[in-house]
């Protein structure tokens, strides 16, 4: 067994090692922390691009931990989706880390920076783990790791609001996890396996013998995951937690974490649940309607927000609807739209959060009404914000347009034109809350004292503008990610049968 075979799980172990070392480094020498975290994030990119190359050359592979056969032991999978999302996580993580080493000083106590980055690395370890986990119990364990780490990076700000939001986040997601664990138990009870492929082989007989148990398990999974990805009626924890967190935490939680939960849900729906189960249970219909409600109400709530971070948080609720809507049509275009939107969304949302963070750092303004004329004082930040916002609306050369395009194709292919109306209305609503910010920023007269407002330092605006340009580049060169997503969607569709 050569060393390259262990490469993909090495990335999870590497995060854990860095996470343990960081508080020690912080105790010893404070100024070593930024180079260490940036170096570690660059090593992540190297490892994940190698594993992407390996998978594109050799096709998908599985890895048995400790050499136990897959029906006993723990199996992890490296297919195109794992590789692509791993690279996405590494890339966005590097950019957020570069932003955080400078920006976090303004938000939390200096003594806690070592712990903050340690939690960041634990969170990425859990995210990498979730993308490659191939049995339902490990998925649950990684979800819990990600839950604890992500609540940690919310409450570390130590304001009453953030602790209150973090507590709600913890307790509601713990309910979601409990539901998922109960579902895991039920699936194990009727199929006798935890591994995805073995469950998928046995779930048809389980459905005919114990249809109630399978129904209950699927229902519990639906509720649990709706809580975790924040679909509309169960989204209540998200706006408080995301808007009260420090900016880098909001960016990683909103841009990556909830979308990784979506990916996990895609894996479960397409790999574990067989075609037969999806035919008997109305899972697709339930997910579609929840997603449609989420898309519309997320946007409605976003319009009435006055705080820019809360607006972005509600916009996450609406965007998560697109992802869930895409894959719940069970055809290849919808699935591709979902996978593409996970990637696009990470770029757009992180750009928006970082740009909003820059505005808050430079001026202290959170109210949207007071942003008049700031675009002229902080041109780079505001261009990054505008690129992200226009991509969110779906203006053609930017990447957001292509997710909506594939989503529309998926809708047309399954002959449910009502959802086309939903996404059209939602696009209008998106425009109605993002465009006023851009217009206020660039075309209104500056109201506050103009000497105080200056562009932030390059360490802070470069990550934001880089992601903004990333939106444009992804939109213009959509063929490259689409090629891998095509393969990935085919693998998923093949597995589900």
């Amino acid at each position, binding site marked *: 067994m050569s060393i390259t075979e262990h490469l993909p799980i090495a990335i999870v172990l590497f995060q854990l090692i860095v996470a343990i070392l960081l508080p020690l480094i912080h105790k010893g020498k404070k100024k070593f922390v930024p180079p260490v975290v940036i170096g570690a994030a660059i090593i992540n990119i190297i490892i994940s691009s190698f594993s992407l190359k390996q998978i594109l050359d050799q096709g998908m592979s599985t890895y048995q931990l400790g050499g136990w056969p897959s029906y006993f032991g723990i199996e992890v999978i490296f297919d195109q989706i794992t590789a692509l999302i791993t690279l996405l996580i590494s890339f966005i993580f590097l950019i957020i880390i570069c932003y955080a080493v400078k920006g976090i000083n303004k938000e939390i106590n200096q003594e806690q920076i070592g712990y903050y980055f340690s939690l960041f690395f634990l969170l990425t370890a859990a995210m990498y783990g979730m993308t490659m986990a191939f049995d339902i*119990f490990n998925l649950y*364990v990684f979800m*819990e790791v990600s*839950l*604890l780490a992500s*609540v*940690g990076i919310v*409450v570390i700000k*130590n304001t*009453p609001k953030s*602790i*209150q939001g*973090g*507590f709600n986040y*913890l*307790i509601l997601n*713990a*309910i979601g*996890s*409990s539901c998922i*664990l*109960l579902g*895991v*138990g039920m699936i*194990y*009870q009727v199929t006798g396996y*935890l591994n995805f492929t073995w469950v998928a082989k046995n779930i048809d007989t389980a459905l005919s013998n114990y249809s109630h148990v399978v129904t209950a398990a699927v229902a519990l999974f639906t509720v649990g995951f709706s809580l975790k990805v924040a679909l509309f009626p169960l989204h209540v924890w998200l706006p408080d937690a995301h808007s009260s967190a420090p900016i880098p935490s909001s960016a990683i939680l909103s841009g990556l974490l909830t979308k990784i939960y979506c990916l996990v849900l895609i894996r479960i729906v397409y790999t574990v649940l067989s075609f037969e189960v999806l035919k008997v249970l109305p899972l697709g219909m339930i997910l579609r309607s929840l997603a449609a409600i989420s898309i519309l109400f997320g946007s409605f709530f976003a319009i009435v927000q006055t705080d820019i971070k809360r607006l972005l948080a509600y916009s996450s609720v609406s965007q998560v609807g697109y992802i869930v809507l895409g894959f719940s049509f069970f055809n290849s275009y919808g699935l591709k739209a979902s996978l593409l939107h996970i990637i696009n969304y990470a770029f757009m949302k992180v750009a928006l959060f970082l740009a909003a963070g820059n505005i808050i750092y430079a001026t202290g303004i959170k109210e949207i009404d007071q942003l008049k004329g700031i675009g002229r004082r902080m041109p780079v930040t505001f261009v990054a914000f505008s690129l992200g916002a226009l991509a969110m609306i779906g203006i053609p050369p930017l990447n957001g347009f292509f997710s909506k395009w594939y989503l529309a194709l998926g809708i047309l292919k399954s002959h449910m034109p009502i959802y086309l109306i939903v996404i059209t209305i939602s696009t209008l609503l998106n425009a109605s809350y993002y465009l006023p910010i851009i217009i206020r920023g660039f075309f209104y007269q500056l109201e506050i004292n103009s000497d105080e407002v200056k562009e932030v330092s390059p360490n802070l605006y470069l990550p934001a503008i880089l992601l903004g340009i990333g939106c444009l580049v992804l939109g213009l060169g959509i063929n490259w990610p689409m090629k891998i997503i095509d393969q990935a969607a085919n693998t998923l569709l093949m597995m589900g049968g």
Partner: protein
Amino acid sequence: MLELVSKLTQNIHYFISLFLFLLGFYTMLANSNLVKKMIGLNIMDTSIFLFLVSIGYIRGGKAPLIHHANEVIRVNPLPHALVLTGIVVSFSISVFGYALIIKIHSHYGTIDTKKITKTENKE
């Protein structure tokens, strides 16, 4: 009728775990006291552990040891391993939750959600 009763008594652990799950869920929803909410969460988790343990149990099964492996029926050890992991997870969430409750108490002076919302609205 008799058959139904015997079926119910044989599967009594599932009913108890379901009852505990709903009890825990109700406790979480109905109480405004944060500590009681955490206790409700713990009851919910415990009910799931009861469920997991009982799906691995085989009536008359012995402890799963390699000694005389093929001669007697053994209980399934895998769900028990899951429960161990689950206990660790549930424990960490409780500890974290209680730590946050202490923080909330030091900021707001109360752990009642209704009073917390009131003070927030005043600000």
